[in-house]
């Protein structure tokens, strides 16, 4: 085929790609943190024995998991202002990413919590620990360990999902790429470059996740 690659035009815009990448990293990081908090708190409530305590969390999970992220971010960005809550694109993006990731995290972590043997929880109670302590000190860590790869996969996915935030004009890698593409018409070069950058970012994340797991889950198992 006659297509000749020319990355020059793309590399000329390296600073934009750099700032875009930082934007993506920032959104991903903040979104992940929020998602983790929502996930852990949510699962604590989700595994309650009392049905009406569980119910709102279940509803939250079902609604968020089963609707597209785009719809959620549109809702927060465009519909909330009609009710008087106006958030800027970056805040919107972080909240949307956190809520979305959090809903998945709740379910993933629940899988881990339910893999903990009843005996562990009973032992905690028998020692006189309160429910919250049993969850925090006894259940949480082994649960997270059991589903760690699923959870980190979800976080990698969340990192890639930041690209959707371009649709509410948040500044991140994909929106930078789209501008460069529309200015240079070098679609292939732009896509390949951006793909490579995403790969670097997510590999970095996976590396960090692996380090965390090595130091946090360093206990042997039988």
């Amino acid at each position, binding site marked *: *085929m006659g*297509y000749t690659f020319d990355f020059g035009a793309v590399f000329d815009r390296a600073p934009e790609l750099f700032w875009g990448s930082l934007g993506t990293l920032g959104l991903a990081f903040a979104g992940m943190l929020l998602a983790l908090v929502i996930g852990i708190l949510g699962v604590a409530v989700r595994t309650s024995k009392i049905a009406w305590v569980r119910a709102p969390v279940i509803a939250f999970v*079902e*609604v968020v*998991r*089963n*609707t*597209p*992220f*785009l*719809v959620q971010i*549109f*809702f927060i960005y*465009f*519909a909330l202002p009609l009710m008087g809550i106006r958030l800027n694109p970056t805040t919107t993006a972080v909240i949307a990413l956190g809520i979305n990731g959090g809903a*998945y995290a709740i*379910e*993933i972590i*629940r*899988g*881990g919590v*339910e*893999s903990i*043997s*009843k*005996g562990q929880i009973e032992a905690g109670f028998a020692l006189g620990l309160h429910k919250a302590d049993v969850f925090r000190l006894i259940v949480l860590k082994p649960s997270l*360990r*059991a*589903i*760690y*790869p*699923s*959870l*980190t*996969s*979800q976080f*990698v*996915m969340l990192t*890639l999902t930041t*690209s959707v935030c371009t649709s509410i004009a948040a500044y991140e890698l994909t929106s930078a790429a789209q501008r460069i593409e529309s200015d240079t018409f070098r679609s*292939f070069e732009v*896509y*390949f470059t*951006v*793909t490579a950058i*995403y*790969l670097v*970012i*997510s*590999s970095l994340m*996976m590396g960090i996740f692996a380090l965390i797991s090595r130091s946090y889950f360093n206990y042997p*198992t*039988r």
Partner: protein
Amino acid sequence: MGPIGENELFFLLQGLKWTVLLAIIGFIGGGVFGILIALVRTSKHQFARLASSGYIALFQGTPLLMQLFVVYYGVALLGIDVNAWVAVAIAFTLHASAFLGEIWRGSIEAVPKGQTEAANALGLHYVSRMRDVVLPQALKISMPATIGFLVQLIKGTSLAAIVGFIELTRAGQIISNQTYRPLLVFGIVGIIYFMICWPLSHVGSGLEKRMAKAAR
């Protein structure tokens, strides 16, 4: 500004048809290869483990959109004409198998070692050890994560628009641009997604309950 009438709804439903078909392709391709990836990733062979973790890093780490783009247009650059269905099947399989592979690897590793040891001591060979002992227990741990991913895959099929499928989201976009009612249109699209994803969550929790019967 146009109203949203029967025509528009019908158009969305036609998009839904593609969404469902694409999701089925992803489920099957991702499920079959995902199991393989998970098994290779937990095998004893250093090289196989390394290769599969590279595979996971590559296909988890790049956006599905880019994978579709590369498979469809990139390969076309090399002079090979790729049918859109083939492109979608390949890209979704790569993407889904990387994620499901990683999810299932984790749950395989979460099954207590004593279980594998007991299976070993009974002389069970690899296939039986996995199929009869490890995977059923792993599946239980991974159920919520698996269902979560499959639901995301259904929604991820919207990216197939880039190779020309007018699936649900794309159909919604087209209608939104005709009617200038993005909130309403995407609200409807959201509800339709909900209606196809929710049964899946339901099936998931049903399966979980069945497996919980044999709980500890």
